């Protein structure tokens, strides 16, 4: 018991704190279009039992297959029954596990640095924010860390099971997102640069086992567990599509320093966003890695450098990719902390870094979760989206004989918010007959829609997201 209190309790506390930050008030933020789209896809899986991998969109299958059991456990077996908390629990749990995995990965640095690394990951603004977000990124980070921990164990103990586990987690990485090969490559480059040698004399055997396990896992997920073998070919196509998207014109092009900015300081609309304490510690950790020769720190430096170079050079950038930098930066920061000779100074430094990160997380995840000044709230839905359902419900009750029409070139996340309601149709352009109990038209199409309406309509407007307005036409019917 005493041993647990000394060794396990601090990790348990960090895990609990991470879980709290990732699960408290999960439904607070309106659904992002991507989240809504993926939640609807999950709903179809729950209702029909079918999932087919789409090479062009939605990334890999793991998000849906891991979300389904959580939905079942919460008694939600249809799209209508699903709620925001259920779908976001998947990344929230994965994000909590990732904190503990980082602690395990950092253990060769010592118990103290392992705790510090886990704590910094637990309160990291991008890590927390995207652990509360129903997208693939946090799952990918978690599987990457699981693969690294397993590979580390195989490296140190040469047990084949660890090689198989590492491969299995690598398979889960592949089944999560097309970006997975980048992290495998960066990790291997790190190993090569630091010239780490495993205990096992047969690297080929371990690598073969790992590769075999990875392929089996990826095969199972992409083939929808044998129900859709076309998914395998689509998975290979997806790699090419991913490369084309990353290097071509996608609308998500950003300057090379975009990710660096997220880890330093910027002021947006009067709000300061910064991770200076964390980043300064991590940069100091690079110095410690060079001077001390600690292989893990040197590996982390190479790993994060490869990611930074590749992801900065690729024009396609989104803020959720930032979480891939966090584990290695946390390792380096923990290494720097361990090198501080004065215990009081070390305690002050870590408390300050955790407090600064914690405050930023509080603002990002709880105060401004959907605010466009929040660097992590990317092309986020406006809070106005929460008003659409009430309008539709009222219109359906008031004018039961007419449909609800949504006529817009963009309409997500509305299908999520209007799920389960009858007589709703979506049109990318105005149909000949635009009349309905309620007609929601994009500002761009509003004039064309109005010209095709008959009768008396009241008009109002709501925002779908900053800069994208919808005109809402409500049919006026005579009072009975």
């Amino acid at each position, binding site marked *: 018991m005493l041993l647990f209190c000394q060794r396990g309790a601090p990790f348990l506390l960090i895990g609990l704190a991470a879980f709290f930050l990732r699960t408290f008030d999960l439904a607070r933020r309106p659904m992002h279009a991507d989240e809504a789209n993926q939640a609807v896809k999950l709903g179809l899986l729950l209702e029909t039992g079918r999932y087919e991998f789409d090479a062009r969109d939605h990334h890999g299958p793991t998000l849906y297959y891991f979300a389904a059991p959580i939905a079942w456990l919460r008694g939600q077996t249809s799209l209508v029954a699903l709620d925001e908390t259920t779908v976001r629990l998947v990344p929230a749990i994965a994000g909590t596990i990732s904190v503990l995995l980082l602690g395990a990965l950092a253990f060769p640095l010592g118990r103290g640095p392992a705790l510090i690394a886990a704590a910094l990951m637990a309160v990291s603004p991008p890590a927390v924010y995207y652990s509360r977000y129903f997208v693939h990124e946090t799952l990918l980070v978690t599987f990457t860390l699981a693969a690294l921990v397993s590979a580390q164990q195989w490296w140190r103990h040469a047990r084949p099971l660890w090689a198989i586990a590492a491969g299995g987690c690598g398979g889960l990485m592949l089944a999560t997102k097309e970006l997975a090969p980048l992290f495998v490559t960066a990790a291997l480059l790190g190993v090569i640069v630091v010239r780490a040698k495993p205990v096992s004399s047969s690297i080929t055997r371990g690598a073969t086992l790992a590769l075999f396990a990875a392929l089996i896992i990826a095969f199972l997920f992409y083939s929808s567990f044998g129900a859709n073998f076309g998914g395998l070919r689509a998975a290979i196509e997806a790699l090419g599509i991913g490369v084309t998207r990353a290097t071509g014109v996608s609308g998500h092009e950003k300057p090379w320093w975009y990710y660096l900015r997220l880890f330093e300081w910027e002021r947006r609309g*009067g709000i300061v966003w910064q991770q200076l304490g964390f980043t300064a510690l991590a940069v100091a950790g690079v110095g410690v890695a060079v001077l001390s020769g600690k292989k893990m720190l040197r590996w982390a430096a190479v790993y994060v450098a490869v990611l930074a170079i590749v992801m900065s050079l690729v024009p396609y950038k989104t803020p959720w990719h930032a979480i891939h930098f966090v584990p290695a930066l946390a390792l380096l920061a923990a290494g720097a902390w361990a090198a501080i000779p004065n215990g009081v100074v070390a305690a002050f430094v870590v408390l300050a870094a955790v407090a600064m990160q914690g405050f930023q997380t509080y603002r990002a995840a709880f105060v401004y979760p959907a605010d466009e000044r929040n660097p992590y709230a990317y092309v986020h839905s406006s809070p106005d989206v929460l008003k659409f359902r009430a309008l539709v419900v009222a219109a359906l009750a008031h004018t039961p004989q007419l449909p609800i029409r949504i006529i817009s070139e963009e309409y997500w996340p509305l299908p999520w918010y209007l799920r389960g309601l009858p007589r709703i149709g979506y049109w990318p352009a105005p149909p000949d007959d635009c009349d309905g109990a309620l007609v929601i038209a994009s500002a761009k199409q*509003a004039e064309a829609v109005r010209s095709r309406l008959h009768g008396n309509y009241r008009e109002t*407007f709501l925002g779908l997201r*900053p800069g994208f307005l919808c005109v809402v036409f409500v049919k006026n019917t005579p009072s009975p």
Partner: protein
Amino acid sequence: MKRTFTALLALFAVVALVRAEDKVPLQLELPKPLFAGTPRPIQIPNLEPPLVGKRPDFMVPAGTALLSKGKPVTGSDTLPTIGELSFVTDGDKSGIDGTIVELGPTPQWVQIDLGAPAKLAAIVIWHFHSQARVYHGVIVQASDDPAFKKGVVTLFNNDDDNSCGLGKGTDKAYIETNAGKIVDGKGTTARYVRLYSNGNTSDELNHYCEVEVFGQPAK
């Protein structure tokens, strides 16, 4: 001769009356536009059309002056998340960081105390002009009662769904620009001006860059 004299007298009287009612264009100092690049197109029917070129002059009685600069401001959100309530009348309407007060979600109001009753000619509002957005439930009221319980005159109300709870309004919503929104004071005599809003099309928050109240001291 008598008829000519009477006619001249009448003419002088008319001229004097017209001069007394002389109106002059409201002189506004507009901040620099803050849109970086092309503003996002927003064209919806219940919005005023976007301003193209110079705005038509808004006529106010001669002698109209800016009454609100530096005057005390109170509000429903006493602890704004960003900025201070005094920003509303501090004369800085540039719209850059550090010049905007941000009030929390739900309907919020700010109130300007002019110090003494005044005959209001115009109220000009800059909520937020670094992005094209529309504020919900914009209501402008004037009163001599600081609690706005009695003698309240509503000068503008575009709260079409009564989200602020003060009654539905029929005025048009408008896009925020550096030109600000001019609300006709209609010669209302009041000491206090109160402005409501209830979030906007981008977020749930309420912002004020500057509010200018023009008029003349009430006699």
